[in-house]
């Protein structure tokens, strides 16, 4: 009798635990949504990446299609080389535009891909040649002040 009672209670306990963990994975975490498994990686060169970080989302038309894998500084050309993992399900033309945008006013930065018109598609190891840097607020403000000052002259 006692044995059955212990077994039953431990069974219930473990079941609640498994349900909680599944609940965390499915309802709270992102295991079901944007699950990126097989990827191909491409690189892009930027003059300035702003606040872009590894694992930042890569979006096409607002949909998450990949993630930033790594960011390194190239000491020969003095710019940043960003490695991007894109989901195998999504293909982009070779002349795709890669821009660094900011989500919201103070949000995190992400890479937005805008498809070009090339017939060939990007494949493993390719380089995205057309890129646009992150907007640095200080630069923008100083440019604005500079043009204001020159107008007054």
């Amino acid at each position, binding site marked *: 009798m006692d*044995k059955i009672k*212990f*077994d039953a*209670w*431990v069974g*219930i*306990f*473990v079941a*609640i*635990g498994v*349900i*909680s*963990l599944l*609940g*965390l*994975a499915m*309802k*709270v*975490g*992102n*295991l079901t*949504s944007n699950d990126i498994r097989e990827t191909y990686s491409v690189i892009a060169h930027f003059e300035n990446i702003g606040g872009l970080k590894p694992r930042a989302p890569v979006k096409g038309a607002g949909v998450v299609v990949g993630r930033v894998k790594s960011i390194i500084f190239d000491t020969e050309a003095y710019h940043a080389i960003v490695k991007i993992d894109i989901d195998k399900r999504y293909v982009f033309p070779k002349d795709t535009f890669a821009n660094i945008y900011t989500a919201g006013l103070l949000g995190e930065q992400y890479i937005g891909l805008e498809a070009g018109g090339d017939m060939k598609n990007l494949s493993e190891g390719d380089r995205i040649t057309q890129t646009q840097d992150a907007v640095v607020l200080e630069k923008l403000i100083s440019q604005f002040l500079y043009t204001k000052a020159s107008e007054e002259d």
Partner: protein
Amino acid sequence: MKSLINFFEKVGFSVTSRIHRLGTATRLFFLILLASGESFKRFQLTMKEIYFTGVMSLVIIIVSAFFVGMVLGLQGYYTLQKYGSSEAIGVLVALALVRELGPVVTALLFAGRAGTAITAEIGLMKATEQLSAMEMMAVNPVGRIIAPRFWAGVIAMPILAAIFSMVGILGGYVVAVIVIGVDEGAFWSQMQANVDFRYDIVNGVIKSLVFGVACTIIALFEGYDAPPTAEGVSRATTRTVVTSSLVILGLDFILTSFMIGG
């Protein structure tokens, strides 16, 4: 001069005795690993201990998780509302619970609820010479008494922590969505967008597993090492709570810095 030497003697003694205890605890840990074959061959032994450490802790875990979640919901709402982003309340509650509060508070409650019981039980067994009696009957007390309790603690802790996180999030949901009226869709979708399975949930489970090992080994060691008197057992029980709490908080910092840095 004499008092100076006395002072250094005291410092030296406290340092060496601590190192000695740490060594004994480590040896006990390896003894448990060596003798743990029986606790899986006769899983009924471990099962009974999971019942006492895990199932009996469910009530305190669920009730405190619900309140912790509700408080997080309230506090978070009043702060986030100032910045006009009260929808982010789901992310705040979920990340705080899954990453930190779930494993840590569960471990602290576990040390208080189950750790003390383990220490007192084993300390009393030693005081009444039940452990020696077992040895006389050629039964290894580490394999028969201690290893099942160790594995029960290690198995129960991650399950309790997962339950804590889930119930806490439900508590936050009750306050934020049902009582205050934050949009339900935003609550869950923001949460799903920002909680990563690998980086947040799995790391939380790893944390609770480490805390489970630490908590149980401390409770077992204090009981096994207790002087066989009423006073000794009571002191050992107190030490279990104090040491476990400190070790949990210290380990939490170390684990977090590894997980975030690495």
